């Protein structure tokens, strides 16, 4: 590749970065603007965008506390974190246990069960949505966190699949040594396999954390009391009731998005590898 070509590609990448980052930039910048600045051009003929209009002036940090006061964001955050922790714990533990069975044990019908598990991933959630809702309602779980947490303790096919592949690739000799030392399968699972599988378990944990954090349909279906809302649901309610309060809405959206970005920067490698393996190597 010539120098000119290299420069050209570089230029294209820089130019494309601008629209890529613009929505996030616009979100954060609006969240720090005064209403006066946001609505300054409203009603005037043909307001255009300028660099000046991207920079909040004055920088108004108090949008954040006012957003928190307008809707109970702190409660929503606490609820969401709680749900994330429970589902991550439940799904990683149960998926790992099941994956160990598929990867390291022999039993009747193993391959049929495995195929059945994989095929359930192709069933659209709408198909089972109504009967599951009816079931949880009959159990008296409507309005509680149980419908949002209990299913995660029964493993999730996608993670079971990922972990099964991972466990299969681990060398057998350490398990054999532990078996000779009198360890049973559960002991091998907890003392040998789990410690060796931290990267794969972390991938599952991060995906599940993001999944629960972003989940909108679950809370929409099952939560009926504002004090139990999650951020995703609370933010949507905020938009539909206080639409037009853009500075506060953007402050809320920023608070909601920031943890995902922080998580991404801390676990970039796990993220990228996890996503890459799901698509490229499956």
């Amino acid at each position, binding site marked *: 590749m010539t120098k000119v070509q290299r420069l050209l*590609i570089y230029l*294209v*990448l820089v130019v494309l970065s601008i629209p*890529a*980052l*613009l*929505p*996030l930039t*616009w*979100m954060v910048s609006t969240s720090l603007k005064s209403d006066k600045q946001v609505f300054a*051009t*409203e009603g005037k003929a043909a*307001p*255009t*965008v300028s660099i000046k209009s991207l920079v909040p002036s004055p920088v108004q940090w108090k949008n954040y506390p006012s957003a928190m006061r307008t809707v109970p964001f702190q409660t929503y955050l606490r609820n969401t974190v709680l749900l994330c922790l429970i589902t991550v714990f439940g799904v990683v533990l*149960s998926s790992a246990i099941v994956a*160990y*069975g598929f990867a390291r*044990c022999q*039993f*009747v019908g193993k391959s049929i069960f495995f195929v*059945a598990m994989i095929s359930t991933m*192709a069933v*659209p959630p*709408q*198909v*089972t*949505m*109504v*009967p*599951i809702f*009816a*079931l949880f*309602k009959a159990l008296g779980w409507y309005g509680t966190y149980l419908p949002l947490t209990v*299913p995660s303790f*029964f*493993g999730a096919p996608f993670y079971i699949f990922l972990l099964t592949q991972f466990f299969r690739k681990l060398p057998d000799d350490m398990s054999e040594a532990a078996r000779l030392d009198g360890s049973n*399968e559960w002991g091998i699972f907890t003392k040998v396999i789990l410690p060796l599988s931290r990267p794969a378990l972390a991938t599952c944990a991060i995906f599940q954390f993001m999944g629960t*954090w*972003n989940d*909108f*349909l679950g809370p929409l279906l099952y939560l009926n009391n504002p004090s139990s809302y999650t951020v*995703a*649901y609370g*933010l*949507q309610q905020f*938009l539909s009731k206080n639409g037009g309060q853009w500075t506060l*809405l953007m402050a*809320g*959206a920023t608070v909601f*998005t920031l943890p*995902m*970005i922080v998580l*991404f920067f801390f676990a*970039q490698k796990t993220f*990228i590898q996890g*996503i*890459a393996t799901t*698509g490229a*190597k499956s």
Partner: protein
Amino acid sequence: MNTPHPNHSTPSRLKKWVRKNGTGLLFISPWLIGFLCFTIGPFFSSIYLSFNAYDLIHPPKWVGGANYSTLLHDDPLFWSSLGITVKYAIVSVPLGIVAGVGLALLLNTKVKGQTIFRTIFYLPSIVPAVANAVVFSWILNPEIGLVNGILRLFGVEGPAWLSDTKWALWSLIFMSVWSVGGSMVIYLAGLQDIPVHLYEAATLDGASAYQRLRKVTLPLLTPVIFFNLVMGIIGSFQYFTEAFVMTKGGPEGSTSFYALYLFQRAWQYLDMGYACAMAWLVFVIVMAITGIVFQSQKRWVHFGH
């Protein structure tokens, strides 16, 4: 001494069976129980409910094929929601593939700062759907939103986007481009898996950069493109959150996506049996489309290198 064991063989066979299979079955039991309660059970009751009138409060009432015949013959909203969803899929899925592959190809050229650019293009796709929907509602605000502000720089007066029946669906398609980062990462991994010696051999044979792209890179990337195509089609039929948050199906039903209409039938009109019938129809449709795509792969997907 000679204590008789009349049932000797049965318990020992059972014991043997348990010893052979018990541990494994015990390990997979969490999934097995969940599979029965949350997948297979609901799966079959959904088929049953689709032949019933059911409102969650009263017991289901058998109506035969009435739900299906209403859907097919008397429900224009069903057909329009199907049309909207198909239109979204036909435009946004290829658009996502072109954008994702394009970005991945640019990044794979080993320019300086590859990881920084990868992060920049990936970042928009980790923004939670609801946050993204709220931000784009604001960006697409006709009067003081960002998009129309930028268009005015070029002397163009943009439409009212989300509140214009002609533009609302296109707004959502436009927005979908920002989530291309996830598939870009998958394409990039696919590109990095292509063995270097293939390029070397092609170069030795005098292939130009364009020919190497056409004859080496793209054919070897087809399995990943195929994966994203299938996932994209399935995803379109489940497209819900953004439409629910931004338009609720409006204006005038122009963004009434299939999954959204199904949700409204079920939870706003409590037509649960009808919603189950809708779910089954879309399941069959998606299976059929996926089947066709799988059939077509013999012609264009390149396996094994």
